[in-house]
């Protein structure tokens, strides 16, 4: 019998779930709790990020429940990789407490919802079922801090944009070259200007960006992804 995508059993329409957590005992406990009390069926388990990505690609579950501490690199990285597979699987991140920075990272990674360890199996079921319905899920107690985190991040991005907007076209070119790993001499050579002129442009860039060093300016650009087309090879060039 064929089954619909994301459903383990087309007859009962129980949605399929993949559990990704380091500990076997935890996975077994979640599986027991879910299958007793929900319309979810666990179709696979994973103990590492690599397994989670491979199993998600193979099984295409409706939902994958990923622990934020999943080894070796954490659940957020696994979420990013799973979203890059471009499969319809929705991702529910499971985390300890309400660290809004982690939630923001999850949001950026494409996560569709969050549950907390301390929310128990009921919260996991509620989260999975919301995702199956096509909704996002955030536990009520995490909603305000997450929204506040989003607002603060937006303000920071707006402030950085305003600082970057102060740069002239030439200064933006100098800034981009700086971020891509060029020093004063090579910036001058690249733009066919004198080293003294390049130095003046660099000083103006630092002043207008309100940073104190070229390193700080580079960090600002990388943190806010101001030059997304720059290849990492260039950024970290010696």
């Amino acid at each position, binding site marked *: 019998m064929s089954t619909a995508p994301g459903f383990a059993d087309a007859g009962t329409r129980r949605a399929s779930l993949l559990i990704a957590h380091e500990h076997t005992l935890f996975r077994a406990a979640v599986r027991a709790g879910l299958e007793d009390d929900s319309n979810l069926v666990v179709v696979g388990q994973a103990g590492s990020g690599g397994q989670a990505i491979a199993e998600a690609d193979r099984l295409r579950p409706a939902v994958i429940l990923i622990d934020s501490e999943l080894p070796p690199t954490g659940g957020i990285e696994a979420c990013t990789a799973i979203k890059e597979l471009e499969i319809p699987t929705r991702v529910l991140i499971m985390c300890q407490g309400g660290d809004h920075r982690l939630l923001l990272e999850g*949001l950026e990674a494409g996560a569709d919802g969050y549950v907390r360890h301390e929310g128990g199996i009921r919260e996991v079921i509620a989260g999975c079922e919301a995702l199956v319905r096509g909704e*996002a899920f*955030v536990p*009520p107690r995490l*909603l*305000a801090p997450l929204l*506040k985190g989003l*607002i603060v991040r*937006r303000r920071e991005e707006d402030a950085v944009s305003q600082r970057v907007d102060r740069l002239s076209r030439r200064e933006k070119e100098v800034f981009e070259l700086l971020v891509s790993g060029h020093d004063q001499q090579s910036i001058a050579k690249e733009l066919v200007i004198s080293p003294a002129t390049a130095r003046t442009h660099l000083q103006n860039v630092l002043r207008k960006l309100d940073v104190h060093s070229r390193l700080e300016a580079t960090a600002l650009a990388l943190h806010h992804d101001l030059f997304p087309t720059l290849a990492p090879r260039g950024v970290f060039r010696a």
Partner: protein
Amino acid sequence: MTARQAFPRQLTGTALEITDGVTTVVGPSGDRYVLNETASALWELCDGETGSDEMVSAICLLFDADQTVIATDVHRTLREFEHRRLLEWVDSSDLCKETG
């Protein structure tokens, strides 16, 4: 609808209570109002520094929702808080006076 430029702020004497998963805001005169999850989050964001448009943008981003619908809901909820004498609106000049 034009968004308010001022920032909503919880009135002094209000309090948020959470009992058995039910969130209640208590007004200065002791009146109690049960809030749903979104209204509860909005209430917590009424800190006098967060604009209603910022609330709308964040909710839209989080839930990938329609901006017009969310804006209507957020502004209606804030008006309801105001109507029930739970919040006041402050503008940036008021904040400068208070902190200056």
